[in-house]
């Protein structure tokens, strides 16, 4: 049974490389939890299937059962009835501590062990699993670098010497130590200040791009859920699920008045936050290779002008944008520095709008993870891509249907 839980992402993807759909990593079947002294159940017949590599956020008002649901997955709370499967195996088949060793766990107050150094904290699970010393040491350095903490600087510090954001990073590193396929996170970013929270969220999203864990994430912050998750589960009153869906689905079509009220007035702004550039179509732009000489540049500029573009983007040999060229008053090409590029995978429409508004140009250059040029986006393009998403709210921002 342990084998199945230890399945590393590589092995898992081999298993999964066929054409069959992503199998579910976590499955809740009719799971309920009620306490003797309370009348109504806190979780009532919940059925939910979470796919491998999926990032699911559980959200809703306090007391809605989202944290209870999370804790039933690693059996910190035992369900009153129903069944929970991880990789097809009943969680009750393992001793609870063995089960938990195979699942990463991050909590709100971080819960770092104050008497242990950062290295010892990160090594907690490998030590439980009986890893060799040098393997553990290598893993510690790898993880600390991964979460953006220089190992030589932080390895031997104690938790009290860290800021809230740094402690949270160590908490994530500790949860990832034994490379568990599943990560459970209980309001992990709630205890840090808003600015740190945003940067932690961004970093974590970027990390998730590379590690592709199955993540169940509890938050009361609807905007956070929308920003981070692939799929959002909104718990409603009486422990019923009010809506399940991708953030764009929920934001563009809230299931009922309850969901609408939870989303609040900033719904459209949130929609902008959770639509990434990869989800919209980019516009092409005339480009030219860096190696080209003055003559070719002038020709390219002339062609661009013919298409109504007053400048050409210069790319290096790896297709990375370098700078703009313009035609100056004397008919010579003039170089103009590139002020910003947007990342296709992580930049949201909201961030893109901000950049476009502040940019001297009316459009922004978009690159992929390797910084290679993908296209440009401008406000018109954003309005165009929002039209199908914004639904009934389109009129508010004047999107043409």
């Amino acid at each position: 049974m342990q084998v199945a839980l230890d399945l590393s992402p590589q092995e898992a993807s081999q298993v999964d490389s066929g054409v069959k759909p992503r199998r579910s990593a976590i499955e809740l079947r009719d799971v309920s939890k009620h306490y003797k002294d309370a009348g109504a159940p806190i979780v009532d017949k919940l059925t939910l299937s979470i796919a491998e590599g999926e990032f699911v956020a559980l959200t809703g008002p306090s007391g809605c059962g989202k944290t209870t649901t999370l804790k039933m997955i690693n059996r910190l709370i035992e369900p009153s009835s129903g069944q929970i499967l991880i990789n097809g195996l009943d969680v009750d088949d393992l001793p609870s501590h063995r089960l938990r060793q195979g699942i990463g766990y991050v909590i709100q107050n971080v819960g770092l062990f104050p008497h242990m150094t950062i290295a010892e904290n990160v090594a907690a699970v490998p030590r439980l699993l009986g890893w060799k010393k040098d393997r553990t040491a290598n893993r510690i350095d790898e993880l600390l670098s991964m979460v953006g903490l220089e190992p030589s600087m932080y390895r031997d510090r104690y938790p009290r010497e860290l800021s809230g954001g740094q402690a949270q990073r160590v908490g994530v590193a500790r949860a990832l130590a034994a490379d568990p396929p599943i990560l459970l996170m209980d309001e992990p970013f709630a205890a840090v200040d808003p600015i740190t929270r945003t940067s932690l969220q961004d970093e974590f999203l970027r990390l998730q791009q590379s590690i592709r864990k199955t993540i169940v994430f509890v938050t009361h912050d609807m905007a956070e859920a929308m920003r981070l998750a692939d799929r959002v589960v909104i718990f409603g009153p009486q422990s019923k699920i009010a809506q399940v869906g991708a953030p764009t689905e929920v934001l563009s079509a809230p299931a009922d008045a309850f969901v609408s009220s939870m989303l609040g007035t900033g719904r459209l702004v949130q929609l902008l936050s959770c639509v990434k550039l990869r989800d919209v179509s980019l516009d092409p732009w005339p480009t030219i290779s860096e190696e080209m000489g003055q003559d070719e540049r002038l020709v390219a500029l002339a062609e661009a002008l013919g298409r109504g573009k007053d400048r050409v983007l210069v790319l290096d040999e790896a297709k990375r944008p370098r700078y703009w060229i313009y035609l100056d008053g004397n008919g010579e090409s003039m170089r103009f520095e590139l002020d910003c590029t947007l990342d296709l995978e992580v930049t949201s429409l909201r961030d893109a709008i901000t950049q476009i508004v502040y940019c001297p140009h009316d459009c922004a250059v978009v690159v992929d993870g390797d910084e290679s040029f993908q296209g440009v986006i401008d406000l018109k393009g954003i309005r165009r891509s929002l039209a199908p998403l914004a639904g009934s709210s389109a009129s508010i921002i004047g999107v043409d249907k």
Partner: protein
Amino acid sequence: MSGYLQYLRYGYHTLISESLSHIVIVVVAMLVAFIVASLLGLLAYRRSWLAEPLLSITSTALTLPSLALFGLMIPIFGLGFVPTLIVLVIYAVMPILRNLITGLNSISPAILEAATGIGMTRTRRLFVVEVPLAWPIIVTGLRFSSMMVVGVAAVGAYVGGPGLGATLFNGLAEVGSRSAVPEVLSATIMILLIAIALDGLFWLISRLTVSPGIR
């Protein structure tokens, strides 16, 4: 002053051997008390309903006059080392147990949840997380307990126990004689010195064993 030096000249080896036996009984009592307190503490940890009654017993038991307790031992255990040790252990257990329970209860629930959540068993969590975190409080209990036991051990001479109490009671019994004051004075000074040495020892233990992360 000359009377004091004269006393030391013929009494010093009694003073030294009594100091040594005083230290021995204190150390033995502390060791036994530590074991007893740990077992009781563990019991209170596993059965949380036991913690409250144990805590109130530990605070009220300390108000018992030691002389009365020693007196109670005579009909049961007679005179000598054993009844003294038993009374000392009873006294020593109280502060140790009290701080043990308090220390273990003072750990933040978030840390405990994290420990369980990453897959520690209850026993492992106790020894890897809880005891190290409660350790500064536990050592304080040991330190306080040892101070008290050094003092109470002197009263043990009442039931024929070993230690500096013999010289002390001797001197008190012969108030007015020339040796009375030197005897009481030198025994008291030795008891103080032992107490100071033990205090230093526990300070050192605490420096060496408490993690710098929580010092």
